[in-house]
């Protein structure tokens, strides 16, 4: 019994970690939707949602309930299997990168303070001591993989299928146009995005997200937003296009395409696409924070708390979420401010301006890194 529990322990820990991380991210995403409606309201001189709960804080749950209880319409001429598969692919690919997010620094001894209180307890005491022993040097990342950057880029690039297949399987001209536009746009801007990440990877010398944060940890002037400012701008613009947000929301341009690729989707299946879009926003915000703003690193915090202690990790984690929320606010702000591009403008901008700029940045970075190392 005891040995079986000890064998199962890592699986239990990973399950709990995955559950907590996914739940946390989904809550942030739900409140991003509310924040978007509120901030857009203020930008346009309105109040925004304020009926459900005080200040409208229960609005996301009301929206979810509404999505669940709406009529689920399936078009007759749709390709059934692909039609149902598409929203699942979109949301799965949006959620999967969560497993490599570096939510905070390692905690040296997270449960050590508990051990003195429980040593006298008959059976539970040794168990808790054993768990505390196992929890030493706990990372705040679910999966520590060597190629975190590539993993995130790869999974988000698979997310295109969700939108493309949704457009194709709905058997509607608006959906098809939306799906085609979206795939073309995402393929084009993926190149610029990958090239802008390359500069950071070369400076940090690693593809591991935690390694990239550790490379920026010496001072805020080492944050890659300063040496890689062009890369940062390219990444930010490409991120807007990758997540199909204003000013690049051509796939769902309502004046031309009704609602784009999700015209024929209703009820919970539409909610899945909607959630996928906002989770993708969260993902690119995390990538921006980790690659260019030092991730969870707070300048000067190591002078106040000892690195590896619980308060250090907590403050770092809050700072990480704060930086992400700043990016999410920027998204909403841009949505309230800018008009939409035309499709040929979007393609010209991506291929003839953004990609050459990113490649030039890569070449300059190669020379600088070579000169610094030699």
């Amino acid at each position, binding site marked *: 019994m005891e040995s079986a529990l000890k064998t199962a322990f890592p699986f239990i820990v990973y399950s709990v970690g995955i559950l907590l991380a996914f739940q946390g991210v989904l809550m942030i995403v739900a409140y991003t939707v509310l924040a978007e409606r509120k901030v857009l309201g203020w930008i346009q001189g309105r109040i925004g949602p304020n009926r459900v709960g005080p200040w409208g804080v229960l609005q996301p749950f009301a929206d979810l309930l509404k999505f669940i209880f709406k009529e689920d319409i399936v078009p007759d001429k749709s*390709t059934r299997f*692909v039609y149902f*598969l598409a929203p699942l692919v979109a949301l799965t690919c949006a959620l999967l990168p969560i497993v490599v997010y570096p939510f905070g620094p390692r905690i040296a001894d997270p449960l050590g303070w508990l051990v003195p209180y429980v040593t006298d307890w008959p059976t539970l005491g040794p168990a808790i001591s054993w768990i505390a022993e196992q929890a030493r040097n706990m990372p705040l990342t679910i999966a520590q*993989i*060597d*190629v975190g950057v*590539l*993993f995130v*880029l*790869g*999974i988000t*690039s*698979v997310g*295109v*299928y969700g939108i*493309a*297949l949704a*457009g*194709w399987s709905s058997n509607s001209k608006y959906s*098809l146009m939306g*799906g*085609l536009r979206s*795939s*073309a746009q*995402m*393929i084009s801007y*993926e190149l610029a995005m990958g090239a802008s990440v390359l500069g950071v990877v070369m400076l940090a010398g*690693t*593809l591991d997200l935690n390694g990239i944060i550790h490379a920026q940890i010496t001072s805020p002037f080492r944050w890659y937003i300063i040496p890689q400012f062009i890369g940062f701008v390219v990444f930010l613009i490409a991120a807007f296009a990758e997540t199909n947000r204003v000013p690049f929301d051509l796939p769902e341009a309502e004046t031309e395409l009704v609602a784009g690729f999700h015209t024929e989707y209703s009820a919970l299946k539409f909610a899945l696409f909607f959630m996928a879009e906002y989770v993708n926003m969260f993902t690119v915000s995390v990538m921006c924070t980790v690659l260019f703003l030092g991730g969870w690193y707070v300048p000067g915090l190591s002078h106040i708390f000892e690195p590896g202690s619980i308060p250090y990790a907590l403050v770092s984690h809050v700072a990480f979420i704060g930086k992400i929320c700043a990016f999410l606010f920027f998204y909403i702000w841009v949505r309230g401010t800018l008009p939409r591009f035309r499709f040929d403008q979007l393609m010209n901008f991506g291929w003839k301006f953004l990609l050459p700029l990113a490649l030039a940045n890569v070449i300059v970075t190669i020379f600088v890194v070579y000169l610094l190392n030699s």
Partner: protein
Amino acid sequence: MASTVLFFLFAGFAIACAISMVYHKNPLYSAISLVGVFIALSCIYVTLAAPFIAAVQILIYAGAIMVLVVFVIMLLNLDEDKPLNRLRYLYAVGGGLGLILLVQTFFIFYAVMRAPQQSVDVEQTAGKTLSIGQAMYTEYLLPVEIVGVLLLMAIIGGVILVRRLEPGQLRLVVNEELDRRNEEQEKDDFRVAL
């Protein structure tokens, strides 16, 4: 133990997707199945301690190449269930090739059984990014350069084939050249006739 279970899970998924890819007549279903194969393979690479290859497999094959394939299929929007009677004779060829593949598979099983047992050490660095980079730019520099030049040629070829010559009209450069030669030939013929 756990890795064996995972291997059979992903291998089974890969084989199922491969069969479905060949079986389906709708090209889009085949493309989706192929994406499934790539994802299953990349999961197997992860269990074999090669995360870089796994990530690149997803990023390039599933994320870039197959997206283009799906894009083309969506643009063409082919009809389902076209009768393919004129390809009947290919069944025999396919059967023969399949038999050879099966024999090869059994030969690999045989060779593996004969070989001394080796367990994969998860901590080894063979699949890590650093070792792959070092191997590519020292030991295998020449092949990498050759592949680079080849890819560059392919890119230039692609650009030339679809180059826009007149506004609003896509024409092949080859056709242009042929037209020009035909015109010259006609002029020459005209001169000879004169």
